């Protein structure tokens, strides 16, 4: 028998905040989150924005491997940051920004491959992010 679910109006963030840890952490995939990951876009069509596969709890670094944008490492700043190029290829870091959706990174010029090191949330696909509705499994 499959486990039916009920959907609560409470978000995962609230559930974690109030301490209903087991099922909320299950949806958060906290082990994989805390292990961190390196995400490589592979070669993509030129764009100024890329979307991470999962929401980021924190972004450590971002590196442009190819594109019109200067190749090298970029600091990932807040959603209103002013974008800038690296000083030169693989020299001092440039600045890119992450949107309030915690997934969209924007660069000052087109990129065609990027590697991002970050802490990903909700990687199993059971929910779409920390703001998802909490859905505890119940036995039917």
């Amino acid at each position, binding site marked *: 028998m499959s486990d039916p679910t009920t959907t609560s109006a409470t978000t995962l963030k609230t559930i974690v905040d109030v301490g209903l*840890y*087991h*099922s909320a*952490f*299950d949806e958060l*995939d*906290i*082990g*994989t989150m*805390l*292990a*961190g990951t*390196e995400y490589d876009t592979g070669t993509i069509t030129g764009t100024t924005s890329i979307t991470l596969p999962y929401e980021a709890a*924190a972004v*450590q*670094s*971002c*590196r442009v491997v190819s594109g019109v944008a200067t190749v*090298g*490492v970029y*600091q990932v700043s807040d959603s209103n940051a002013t974008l800038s190029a690296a*000083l030169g290829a*693989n*020299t*001092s*870091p440039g600045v890119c920004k992450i949107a309030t959706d915690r997934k969209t990174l924007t660069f000052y010029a087109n990129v065609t491959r990027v*590697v*991002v*090191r970050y*802490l990903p949330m909700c990687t*199993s696909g059971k929910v779409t992010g920390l703001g998802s509705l909490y859905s505890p499994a119940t036995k039917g």
Partner: protein
Amino acid sequence: MSNTKTSSLTIQGALDNAVPTVFEAALNMLDLGTMLTNTEYDTGTVSASATVVLPYEAAFVQSARVVTSGTAGSLGSYVVADSAATPVAPPSASTQPGVASIATDRKTITFPNTVTRVVVRYLPMCANPSIGRSVTGIGASYVATTKSS
């Protein structure tokens, strides 16, 4: 008397599944409190090397700062990027950041020049291997302690 048994689960897997019977022990092995406290690790004066090894796996590295080096121009703060990044010194000492890389072992940081003292600010995992346990990182096997008569 207590015995231990090793599960096929890793700590990472135990946390992902959040199985009530193993979750708290997995968090205990991770030393979540120490991890979230954030740490500044100071190597002190070390032999000149282009790499430093953190005492514990890093979930996240905020910054690395070269305090002393045989190359005067390489002093200053560094962004710690992914394992394939090209290490780069700052344009000049203590100006814009340079770039260092961290290996996939989550512990080894590589700089563009040899360094003799570095301070790293990071989130350490499994940072308190006390009370007789030996946990090497989040990929280590989950080890359950069981009571036996």
